[in-house]
């Protein structure tokens, strides 16, 4: 029985030796992409210094029911009162 254990341990050593160059081989190298520099026009991920001013002038209203007058009315009906939300500032 002792012989078997001794030989099995020898076999483990042998397999370790055989796999050493191959395993070490894979562990020796890796690649880590550096921060990619995108094109000048590509601002993905950038922190904006100024708020974005959306320009909807090019938007056309296709729904016939919603005319410019309707939208104006909707704006007039807008009951948003900043003082309700920011009382401290008004005081």
């Amino acid at each position: 029985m002792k012989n078997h254990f001794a030989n099995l341990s020898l076999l483990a050593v042998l397999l370790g030796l055989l796999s050493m160059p191959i395993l070490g081989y894979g562990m020796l190298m890796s690649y880590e992409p550096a921060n990619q520099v995108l094109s000048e026009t590509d601002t993905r991920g950038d922190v904006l210094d100024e708020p974005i001013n959306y320009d909807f002038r090019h938007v056309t209203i296709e729904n016939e029911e919603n005319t410019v007058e309707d939208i104006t009315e909707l704006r007039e009906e807008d009951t948003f009162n900043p003082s309700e939300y920011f009382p401290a500032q008004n005081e």
Partner: protein
Amino acid sequence: MFSRILVKLIDEAIVPAITLLVVRLVSALLVARYFGLPFSVGSTGFIYQSKQDFLIINSYSTLAMILVLAIGLLYVLVKSHLFHDSHVHPHTAAKLHSLKLSSFIQTSFDLYSQGAIWLSYSYLLLIASIIMVYFGLLYSWVVWVSVVLNFISTYLFIIDVEKEGNLKKSGNSDEDITVISWGEDEI
């Protein structure tokens, strides 16, 4: 009692293992320098900046390992075909003795254990290469170089083993083997 074969195999495996690792390291450095590819050294070894850089260096580094394996296998195969004690040519044996190179003549046990180790490394490298090609980390032509090396070396190794087997089957001593193998010799 330790197995004699296992002890011998471990003994024969140490030098190729260290050689292959050194070749891997040196070739990675040289290839990076030759192609001018930037890299850094971290806790995980060499770190390259892109997958393309890694692909180039990994491929040529693996090729260097295959070439070293080819040299090792060639050395063992030449010894087993020309300087095998069971069928070494008498003229060759005499010449080696006169040059005090009789250590080149080796027994089947020595030669086959060396051959088994070098072939094992070669096949393990082939398996690793196939896996790396699958993941796009190695050029596929590197695998074909490895396949050709494995094919030729295995074939030549089998021929020698078969020659040895035939000699053993005939049940002759070394002197008789010389007469049978080289019938044209006037011995």
